[in-house]
C-alpha cells in the first residue's frame, strides 16, 4: 500500500472537516481543527489502510469533539440546578441561531450523524464508516438527532 501525500487528504477533506467542526462546536472549532489535523499528521505514516482516509479523519474529529465537551463541562461553573440537556426542550427551535445552538447540544454521535448527513450530504454508509458504526446505526442516530431537535424524523430519507 502506498499512502498518498498528506496534502491530498488536506485538499480533499480539510474544507469539509472545518465546516463540520464549526457546525458542531462554534467558537471552539478552530482549536479542535488544529488538534484533529495535527493528530492525523502525526499518525499518518503508520496508517495501515488508506481506503477510508476521510472516515479516519472524521473518526479522530468525533473523539476530539467528545474531549472538547468534557473540557467545557470541567470549566463550567457549578450551578444549583443542572439543566438536563439530554432531554429535548418542549418547543421546536424557532430561528436559525436557536437551531444551531440545539445542534451543538446534541449527544456527540447524533450530532455527528446529523451534520454528516445534511451539512456534508453523505450517504449513511459513509457516515457509519466515519463514526465506526453500522449503516443502520448511522441512520438511527440521524433519526434520533432530528427527534431531539424537534424536527420530523420522517425527514430521514432512505439514503442520499
Amino acid at each position, binding site marked *: 500500500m502506498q499512502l498518498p501525500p*498528506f*496534502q491530498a487528504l488536506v485538499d480533499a477533506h*480539510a474544507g469539509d472537516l472545518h465546516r463540520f467542526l*464549526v457546525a458542531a462546536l*462554534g467558537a471552539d*472549532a478552530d482549536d479542535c481543527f488544529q488538534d484533529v489535523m495535527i493528530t492525523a499528521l502525526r499518525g499518518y*505514516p503508520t496508517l495501515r489502510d488508506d481506503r477510508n482516509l476521510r472516515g479516519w479523519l472524521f473518526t479522530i474529529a468525533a473523539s476530539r469533539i467528545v474531549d472538547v465537551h468534557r473540557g467545557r463541562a470541567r470549566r463550567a461553573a457549578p450551578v444549583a440546578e443542572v439543566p438536563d440537556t439530554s432531554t429535548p426542550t418542549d418547543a421546536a427551535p424557532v430561528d436559525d441561531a436557536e*437551531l444551531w445552538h440545539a445542534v451543538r447540544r446534541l449527544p456527540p454521535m447524533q450530532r455527528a450523524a446529523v*451534520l454528516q448527513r445534511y451539512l456534508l450530504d453523505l450517504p449513511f454508509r459513509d457516515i457509519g464508516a466515519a463514526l465506526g458504526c453500522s449503516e443502520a446505526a448511522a441512520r438511527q442516530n440521524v433519526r434520533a438527532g432530528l427527534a431531539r*431537535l424537534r424536527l420530523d424524523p420522517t425527514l430521514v430519507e432512505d439514503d442520499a
Partner: protein
Amino acid sequence: MTPTPPTPVDVLRAGPPAEPGAGLEHALERFRRAAQSEGLLDVAWASVDSPVGALVVAATPQGLVCVSWELDDALDELARRVSPRVLEAPARLDGVRRQLDEYFAGRRRRFEVPVDWTLVAGFRREVLQVLSAEVPYGATATYGELARRVGNPRASRAVGSAMATNPLPIVVPCHRVLRAGGSLGNYSGRGGADTKRWLLGFEGAIPAR
C-alpha cells in the same frame, strides 16, 4: 406571493453562520505553523512561477530535496520515497524561492541553499555534486567531460542518466551539460530542449535567440 421559508433541514444543509476569524484558510495557516513547530513537516512544498513555467520546490528539514515541473508526480514521489507527511508550506521554502526569483531576474549566478540528496544515490549523486561544484553559470560541459571529472571517463552514458533523473533541475544545473560536438542534447524538464536552450541563452553560454 411570499417565498417559502427555509425548512430546518435547509438550514442544516446550508451550515451555520461563519465564526469571525475562523475561515478555512486561516485554520490551515495555523495548522502549517503547528506542524512545523511540532516537527511533523517532513516535506514542505511551494509553487514558484518562473519564465520556464510553474515549478514546485520541496524541502525536508535537511534542505532542498526536489525541483519539478510536475506537481502531482513530484508529491507522489516524495510521499513514496521520503515521507507521506507532505504539506504545502511556502514559508519553509522562502530561501530557495527568493534565490530562484533572483536567478531569473539575472541577479544571482549560483544557488546557496542546503541540499538534501535523498532522492539520488551512488554514482548519480556524485556526478550531480561535481556538476554543481565545477560547472558554473555561463559555462557548459559535455557528458564525456563530466564523466572524466568524476574519474570515470567511459561513463558518459551513466552521466546522461544522472542528468535525466536529476531531482533538482535548474538549482543543480544539468542544463549546462551538452552532447559532444556542441549539440544541446535532451532535457527532461518541461519544454525539453527548448527550455534547455532558453536557460543556456539566458546564462549567456550560447547566443540567446
